[in-house]
């Protein structure tokens, strides 16, 4: 294959759509190799789609893409270059497993690249050492800070020495110090492997200054390419952000003005917000740790810090959403209480994500807010009109708000937050993901509210240029406030050039105190790092053809075990799934075992005896002494009879007519009536059978007394032999069947959820971009759940034998083997369903319905399969539960041997390859 010299990738007219939404509109681009290429632009302009396509994680829809010298649309090429590419998707640690430790995550990726144990250990140690994560190797990822997650993500990406490293917004949401450390780490790695091409997307323009070559994107198109200096020169701007705004087409920045902030006039009166020693703990973790704040009226107060450092928690405590663990918070001099409804009228709040009702229109959302704040109707009307005007919402008034672009939704959120003219606004990262132009517009409105309407504004942000606009800024880190001052004051205090540098200085000071060695040791450029055995001697060969990447074998047990091990660890560390799979199964076993019973016992009945003779009492005594019937007090009249039946208190009533005793004595034919409650037909049928039986035994006894002969003579005798279950106790059939039902739907649901969870959380991308094959992925995921099902099966058999007292009379080995095959089949059903579902809720509902319905209706649990016909029979015979139930009931109650059950075992086994085959067929190796 021809690899253009010095090019990592060449895109020709690449377009990409998600349904009706266009993400990329005909991009043609050459990406140079062996340098750091930056993709810049706000959220939603197509950066992630472009990176996903180049990484092979997304399926190419139209156009051509050559990556590392071959067509990325060609599955063979993708497989061949897989070991040379590393892809770190967007989001903090989104392709990592939160429950697994740092070392376990790297170990997982190492196995995916089929590295042998010795190599694996060496590489993990080396990476942990060089990134400073060695001290945290056993810490679960969910407890890492954002910065550490990203470093770990980088470790996992570098485990196989890639030639092309693709990073999608690796530094979004992490603090400035971690950000700087991250880039230093990349520099170190590049120094080690100069041939490595790094492709980075970022929303931070400041950060992009350091990249070798930039691609500015907007609206799915390329605005410009070139070095940072060249772009700035072209736009005649001092900063990249200004250059970017200048590069955006005229129409998009219609009416754009740079934000101008007039100086603040100090307001008299008490401060708007006071926090003293404010603390919030979740368990033993202090999310907010003794925070002190004083915010003056009319002030714009900024709040800066990494994700998860406690900013949101602090804001939620101030709004009364979260109770305070310790310390106090005062708004306008009054303590914040969850029930203080009046206070809420004075505060406007905007939470991190868009939190209005997406299914309502702009107008409906605003009207709802006005009503809930009890603004009188006429006042609300003018208020809404002025907001619509002021926030430029008129053009979209009757559109569903979730169909609007982010910038407009942001304006709507702010409009809703100020509809009741609050004196204070608490805004939690309102500008995340918004493009620079819309962000500046948003700020223009904030400035207006603060300076012209004396509204106090407490705003958190990731953007340093936004922090610089605030009157004062507080820097938060790990639950504590490191410094609070005017931006210029902070810069001066640290003798720094920019606000960012000042913050880094504060953070370094704080982390030095907290973690004396580990974090600091992490980046020391020029550190002597030993090369591992498989490191290429001449990395510059990345773009050449002289290098033959070790071809990925078609099947590797190591990759399969990687997934099995990862899944197993996750199950063991998720108390809820673990509890549900064990405790839930046992609970449902008891419920179904006792609940699905077809025994008809303890039927309540009463007698309306209108004869009152020894003969009539003689008749009713026949009913008194069986476990089937419980006699109630005698009835006196028809009204009582009617009431008893209507309320359901009585299942049946016997009425003996006047003159019954006389007629019996005389030998005259007479008639007894029985009324049976027919509301529950099955029960009524059974009662009918019982009554006839009891009546017959009465006749026999009567015959004996009158004629002296033992039985009335009949021309035929019928000997009924109830095989397998002499007492007709439904428990002997139902308990073995319930095992089949629960081994079906719980493992299938958990299995489907585990795959769809990877889709929802984003870790499915590991299947797309690493050499793991679909078969290895599926079998690896399946293995732990089969194990879990077998443990469940053992506990259910124990319940059956010891609690329900249903013994295994037949072949226990056939039952065990059947349970194993059946568990593979039922988890296979889960796999198959997961291929068609994208959300966990859909997977849950779909699996529950698609397994329970055929199992209950057509698998012979209630109605024997032999009684079915047509489609019902086809479903019954085409569903594995049918065969497992035969084996289970056969082994428990019918006392059948292994040989008797062999046929059903074979049929059951045939489901396994079929289900796995279909799952493979429908599981894509790429995202759309």
């Amino acid at each position: 294959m021809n690899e253009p010299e010095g090019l990592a990738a060449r895109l020709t007219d690449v377009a990409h759509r998600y349904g009706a939404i266009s993400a990329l509109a005909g991009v043609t681009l050459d990406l140079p190799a062996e340098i750091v290429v930056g993709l810049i632009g706000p959220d939603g302009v197509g950066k992630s789609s472009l990176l996903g396509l180049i990484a092979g994680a997304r399926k190419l829809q139209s156009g051509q893409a050559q990556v590392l010298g071959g067509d990325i649309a060609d599955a063979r090429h993708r497989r061949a270059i897989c070991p040379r590419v590393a892809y770190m998707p967007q989001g903090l640690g989104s392709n990592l497993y939160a429950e697994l430790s740092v070392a376990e995550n790297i170990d997982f990726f190492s196995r995916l690249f089929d590295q042998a144990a010795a190599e694996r250990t060496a590489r993990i140690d080396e990476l942990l050492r060089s990134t400073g994560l060695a001290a945290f190797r056993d810490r679960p990822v969910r407890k890492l800070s954002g910065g550490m997650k990203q470093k770990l993500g980088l470790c996992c990406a570098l485990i196989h020495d890639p030639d092309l490293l693709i990073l999608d917004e690796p530094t979004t949401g992490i603090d400035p110090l971690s950000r700087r450390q991250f880039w230093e780490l990349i520099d170190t790695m590049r120094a080690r492997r100069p041939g490595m091409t790094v492709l980075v997307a970022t929303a931070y323009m400041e950060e992009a200054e350091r990249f070798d070559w930039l691609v500015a994107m907007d609206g799915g198109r390329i605005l410009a390419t070139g070095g940072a200096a060249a772009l700035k020169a072209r736009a005649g701007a001092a900063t990249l952000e200004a250059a970017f705004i200048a590069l955006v087409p005229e129409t998009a920045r219609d009416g754009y003005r740079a934000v101008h902030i007039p100086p603040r006039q100090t307001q008299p009166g008490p401060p708007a917000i006071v926090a003293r020693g404010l603390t919030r703990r979740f368990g033993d973790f202090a999310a907010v740790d003794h925070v002190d704040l004083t915010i003056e009226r009319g002030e714009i107060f900024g709040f800066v810090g990494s994700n998860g450092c406690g900013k949101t928690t602090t804001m939620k405590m101030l709004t009364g959403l979260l109770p305070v663990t310790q310390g106090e918070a005062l708004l306008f001099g009054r303590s914040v209480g969850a029930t203080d409804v009046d206070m809420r009228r004075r505060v406007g709040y905007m939470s991190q994500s868009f939190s209005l009702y997406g299914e309502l229109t702009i107008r409906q959302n605003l009207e709802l807010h006005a009503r809930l704040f009890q603004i009188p109707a006429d006042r609300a009307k003018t208020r809404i009109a002025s907001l619509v005007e002021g926030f430029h919402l008129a053009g979209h008034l009757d559109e569903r708000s979730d169909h609007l672009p982010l910038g407009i939704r942001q304006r709507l959120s702010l409009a809703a937050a100020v509809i009741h003219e609050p004196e204070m606004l608490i805004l939690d990262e309102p500008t995340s993901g918004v493009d620079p132009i819309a962000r500046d517009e948003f700020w223009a409105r904030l400035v207006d509210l603060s300076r012209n309407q004396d509204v106090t504004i407490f705003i958190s942000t990731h953007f340093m240029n936004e922090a610089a606009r605030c009157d004062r800024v507080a820097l938060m880190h790990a639950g504590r406030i490191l410094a609070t001052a005017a931006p210029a004051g902070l810069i001066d205090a640290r003798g720094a050039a920019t606000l960012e540098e000042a913050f880094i200085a504060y953070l370094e000071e704080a982390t030095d105190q907290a973690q004396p060695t580990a974090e600091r040791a992490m980046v020391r450029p020029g550190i002597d790092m030993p090369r591992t055995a498989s490191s290429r001697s001449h990395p510059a060969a990345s773009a050449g053809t002289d290098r033959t990447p070790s071809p990925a074998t078609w099947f590797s047990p190591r990759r399969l075990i990687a997934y099995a091990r990862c899944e197993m660890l996750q199950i063991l560390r998720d108390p809820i799934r673990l509890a549900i799979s064990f405790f839930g199964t046992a609970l449902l076993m008891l419920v179904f075992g006792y609940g699905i019973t077809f025994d008809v016992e303890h039927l309540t009945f009463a007698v309306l005896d209108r004869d009152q003779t020894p003969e009539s009492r003689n008749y009713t005594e026949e009913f008194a002494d069986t476990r089937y019937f419980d006699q109630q007090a005698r009835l006196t009249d028809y009204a009582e009879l009617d009431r008893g039946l209507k309320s359901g208190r009585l299942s049946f009533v016997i009425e003996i007519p006047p003159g019954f005793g006389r007629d019996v004595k005389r030998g005259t034919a007479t008639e007894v009536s029985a009324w049976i409650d027919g509301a529950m037909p099955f029960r009524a049928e059974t009662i009918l059978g019982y009554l006839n039986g009891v009546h017959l035994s009465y006749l026999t006894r009567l015959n004996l007394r009158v004629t002296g002969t033992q039985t009335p003579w009949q021309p035929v005798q019928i000997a009924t032999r109830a095989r397998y279950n002499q007492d007709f106790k439904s428990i002997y059939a139902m308990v073995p069947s319930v095992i089949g039902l629960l081994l079906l739907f719980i493992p299938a649901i958990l299995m489907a959820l585990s795959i769809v969870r990877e889709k929802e959380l984003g870790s499915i991308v590991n299947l797309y971009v690493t050499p793991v094959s679909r078969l290895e992925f599926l079998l690896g995921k399946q293995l732990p759940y089969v194990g879990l099902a077998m443990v469940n099966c053992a506990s259910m058999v124990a319940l059956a034998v010891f609690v329900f007292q249903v013994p295994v009379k037949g072949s226990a080995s056939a039952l065990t083997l059947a349970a194993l095959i059946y568990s593979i089949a039922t988890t296979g059903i889960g796999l198959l369903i997961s291929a068609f579902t994208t959300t966990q809720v859909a997977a849950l509902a779909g699996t529950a319905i698609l397994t329970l319905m055929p199992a209950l209706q057509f698998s012979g649990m209630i109605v024997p399969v032999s009684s079915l016909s047509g489609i019902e029979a086809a479903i019954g015979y085409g569903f594995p539960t049918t065969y497992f139930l035969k084996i289970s009931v056969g082994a428990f109650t019918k006392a059948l041997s292994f040989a008797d059950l062999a046929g059903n075992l074979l049929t059951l086994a045939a489901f396994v390859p079929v289900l796995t085959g279909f799952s493979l067929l429908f599981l894509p190796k790429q995202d759309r």
Partner: protein
Amino acid sequence: MSSLSNIWHLGIKELRSLGHDTVLIVLIVFAFSYAIYSLATGISFELRNASIAIVDEDHSRLSNNIAAALLPPYFKPPEQIAPGELVRRLDNGRDTFVLDIPPKFQADVSAGRAPTVQLNTDATAVVQAGIGANYIQQIVTDEVDRFYYGIDSQPDPAVALRTRIAFNDNLESSWFMGVAWLINVVTMLAMVLSGAAVIREREHGTLDHLLVMPLSPFEIAMAKVWANGLVITIAAGLSLRFVVHGVLGLPTTGSFALFLASVMLYLFFASAVGLLLGTVARSMPQFGLLFILVVLPMIMLSGSYTPLESMPHSLQIVMQAVPSTHFVKIAQAILFRGAGLDIIWPNLGVIVGVGGLLFALALSRFRASISQEVS
């Protein structure tokens, strides 16, 4: 007053949101129409198409008459099998019943020697085996009597038992199952709608938004209860009228209004359970798993399928505290037996009492559920 207006406006918002959720609407319509119909007619506890085989060692007119009398829809056409096949076929579940007619059967009957016919049943087929054995015994007895005595000249017994089935004379199982599934669908949807509404609001952050407005948790919860309750009550009413009474043909015995009023009170309970689960679960999948664990016992043990009195005594006592048990009683009493308020009021009392308790519990967890989410 302002509280009522808040509940009203928030409820309208719920209805609007529901109106935009096409999937949910399709689910509601499907559940109350086709699902009830297919489940009512699909799972049958009646004797239908039971598979029976005959080992006929006589091959006489009488044995042929017996085989011919085993008719659809109760039985599939009987298969003639060899004596050696009997055990294997029962073991395999091929047949539920095997009737063994001995050699010289007809001759023995004619001679008054009262020969014995053996009826083997697979007693693990618990639903069919008992009822079917009764039917087969009756059919064999009738055929032999008719052969022995001639038509209509059997002797009368000294005492006859006349059985009458009240409320459902033909023992239509689809009526019973239709009502049972109507109850189950009401239970499930009420829980899912209210619980999912809470979780959706929390996941989208709109619950935070509501809680910083001058609203109380009571108002937020009540709005969900009335809005979802209204939708389900209307759907249940339509379903009862057109599916259960209409298509399935259950005669209108009781008061429609009384039933709907009971549904509304029951919905209050079911929605409260949904709200409570919504505050306990941290995500939709967790809610789903919890939902399954809660709803299955509620449905299976409430007596809507299998008779309550056959369960272990202690379990019956526990289930007396669960409103669904009482709602099943109410529904059966009104719809089959035409009972009035004078009969069902104690059951309604339990529903309202337990519902109120759970609703209070859900409210008290409302705010706590937000703080737990962050951890």
